[in-house]
């Protein structure tokens, strides 16, 4: 089982990314320590009694502490799949979101057909397209259906794998990263973090 890792995503260290494996149930004593760590943090919520919620938040707190990042000065975006979770920590003024999925994840034929009917860059697979729209949902707080109307995603050819999507003339930039068999999509209104 791999250890959680925290890496700086941007040159100015304004955005960091945490990758971690979702472990099976920890021991009672580990859970108790998780509980108190999360209870006295900004993550405290009614969902503290859900094991996976508790575990991922405790791991994030531990990694931030190791990197000397104060949780009260940042915001966190999280994406889970069955085996891993990815968390982004960023300055509060950066609009940013993350979504990820296992590379070999299948989608239904019906969904594949629907996505085939949507205009998108050829370099973007169906799963990547879904990842990207999920980040837009998190950033804009809009639903899928309204996002798909008049959606135009452009690959910025000079910038090596960065995609541009305009929402009412506000640009959102997206980039994909590979990690441990997963594709991770990060979208933000701040292009600098991808450079």
């Amino acid at each position, binding site marked *: 089982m791999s250890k959680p890792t925290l890496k700086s995503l941007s040159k100015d260290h304004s955005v960091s990314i945490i990758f971690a494996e979702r472990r099976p149930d920890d021991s009672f004593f580990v859970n108790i320590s998780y509980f108190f760590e999360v209870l006295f943090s900004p993550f405290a919520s009614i969902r503290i009694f*859900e094991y*996976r*919620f508790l575990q991922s938040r405790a791991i994030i707190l531990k990694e931030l502490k190791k990197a000397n990042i104060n949780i009260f000065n940042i915001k966190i975006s999280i994406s*889970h*799949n*069955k085996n891993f979770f990815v968390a982004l920590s960023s300055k509060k003024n950066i609009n940013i979101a993350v*979504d990820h*999925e296992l590379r070999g*994840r*299948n*989608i*239904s034929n*019906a*969904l594949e*057909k*629907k996505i085939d009917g949507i205009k998108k860059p050829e370099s973007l697979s169906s*799963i990547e397209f*879904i990842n990207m729209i*999920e980040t837009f949902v998190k950033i804009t707080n809009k*639903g*899928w*259906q309204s996002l798909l109307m008049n959606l135009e995603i452009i690959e910025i050819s000079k910038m090596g794998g960065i995609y541009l999507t305009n929402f009412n003339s506000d640009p959102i930039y997206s980039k994909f990263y590979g990690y441990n068999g997963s594709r991770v999509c990060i979208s933000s209104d701040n292009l600098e973090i991808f450079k």
Partner: protein
Amino acid sequence: MNKFFIIGFIMENKLIEIVAEALEIDQDMARNDLVLDPEDNWDSIALLSVIASIDEEFDIQLDGDELAACRSLSQILNLLKDNS
């Protein structure tokens, strides 16, 4: 046999097939007390797959938030019946 019972039976079996495909599990597993967990199997891709398949099979457009709130097959079936 009642016509509505037969329609419900066919709908339920098709729904099991759709959910099993979306969650990449056996139909037997989908049939038996399946729990839809948003932090595990009931993620955005599974939801979108089910929405697209239900649209294709039944010509019913489900609301994503309503479907996401479902935690069992019977809840999805009730949602289908409410929208048909």
